[in-house]
């Protein structure tokens, strides 16, 4: 006790130094985790965006003259697209076998259907810019595929049991929307009239920190021209 009283000023200053360094260490740890979370969400967003672009640009491939094929996106009341379905054709150079007992002979055409489904998962609590707390619903985007044989130019119907999870998925979406646009940017609900597909989504970090992450949502969008809808010029003989 006497030792403390004899060196009281040093003890106080030392305690303050220890406190400052401790707080700094805690904040550094928090910042390190947040940097990792920010890098993760940015990587996920960019990679997922690349997958989306690849799918959109490939839809309607080999569909013949001036054809591109997709259904009108199904939207929920909150604006999210819950289902989007599109397809393209492919010729089997050898006999093709697909899950669901779908077998295509060499030289025949198979229609490859792809479906995006938005599935609600968990909720997270985040803080708005005005300081109030809000609960955000997170979604998982599931990519599913199915194949159907084409006979006499008509593709067979795809039973619901044939859809299977295919390739990639992302599970921390807070917003996902697909829209069809005309050439002048107006939104259309007619798949035959749409010239562009616009996809927008937002990704939330995997780890919701307290206090909240500096990046709460990362927004990504793209507008892509789908295949042209006019007759190609005849080949010169």
């Amino acid at each position, binding site marked *: 006790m006497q030792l403390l009283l004899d*060196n009281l*000023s*040093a003890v*106080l*200053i*030392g305690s*303050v*130094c220890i406190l*400052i*360094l401790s*707080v*700094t260490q805690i*904040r*550094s740890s928090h*910042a390190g985790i*947040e*940097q990792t979370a*920010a890098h993760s969400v*940015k990587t996920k*967003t*960019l990679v997922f965006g690349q997958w989306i672009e690849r799918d959109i640009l490939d839809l309607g491939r080999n569909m013949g003259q001036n054809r591109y094929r997709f259904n009108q996106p199904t939207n929920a009341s909150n*604006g999210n697209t819950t289902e989007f379905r599109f397809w393209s054709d492919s010729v089997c150079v050898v006999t093709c076998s697909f899950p669901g007992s779908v077998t295509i002979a060499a030289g025949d055409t198979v229609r490859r259907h792809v479906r995006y489904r938005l599935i609600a998962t968990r909720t997270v609590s985040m803080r708005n810019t005005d300081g109030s707390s809000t609960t955000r619903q997170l979604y998982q985007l599931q990519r599913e595929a199915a194949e159907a044989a084409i006979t006499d130019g008509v593709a067979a119907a795809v039973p619901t049991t044939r859809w299977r999870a295919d390739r990639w998925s992302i599970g921390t979406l*807070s*917003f996902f929307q697909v829209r069809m646009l*005309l*050439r*002048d*940017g*107006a939104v259309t609900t007619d798949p035959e009239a749409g*010239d*562009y597909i*616009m996809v*927008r989504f*937002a990704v939330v970090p995997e780890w919701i920190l307290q206090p909240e992450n*500096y*990046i709460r*949502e*990362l*927004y*990504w*969008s*793209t*507008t*892509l*021209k789908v295949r*042209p*809808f*006019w007759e*190609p*010029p005849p080949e010169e003989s």
Partner: protein
Amino acid sequence: MPQTMLGLLALVLASFVAFNQQRITQQSYRAALRDEIEIAASGTAQHVIEMLGARSFDEQSSPARVFQAGGVPTSAAQFTAAGSFANDRGTLGCDLMDPVDTPLCDDIDDVNGLRTVVVEARLSDGRTLPFTADINVVYVSSPGATTASTTPTLHKRVDLTLRSSLLPDLPNGILSVSRVISYDPMKADADMESMCGAIGSSNSPCRTGGSVGAPG
């Protein structure tokens, strides 16, 4: 007294470490925010460029002019002179996000010279992130050419620069995109048929001349 001096020295060093750590943390936060804004800007820029590409290549290849002329332009000499860009874009200007709202801005060179035009990244729940866009359009001799051409050619290069008020320390903009759009007579013909019908149609809305509304 020596102990007090040592204590104060320790306090100064601890403060120095803490302040530097705080500065480094703030720099990383700014970098993360800049990433977020740049990603939103890239999507917005792509949308703007795609909407520009949907427009007619030139006023002479717009649907109404093609209908009235009885055919699409066949040479670059028929296109607008480089010094006459944007003379016919009307008083409403050009809406870069939704061209349908500014029907007179119906060809690519109508957006030449636009400055601080507001474009928005559309987020969820109706929120937006605004940017300002500057656009220049020039003729180029080929898709790979870097110098502008003073005479009309079959290729126009669009230079788009986006700026954000949230990043004022980037005077040159946060994103610059260039794209060369080449004249496509098939597209011009298809756009004309889509908006005006077949050439010579008596009931066509293009018979009276001028722009018929939606670009492209």
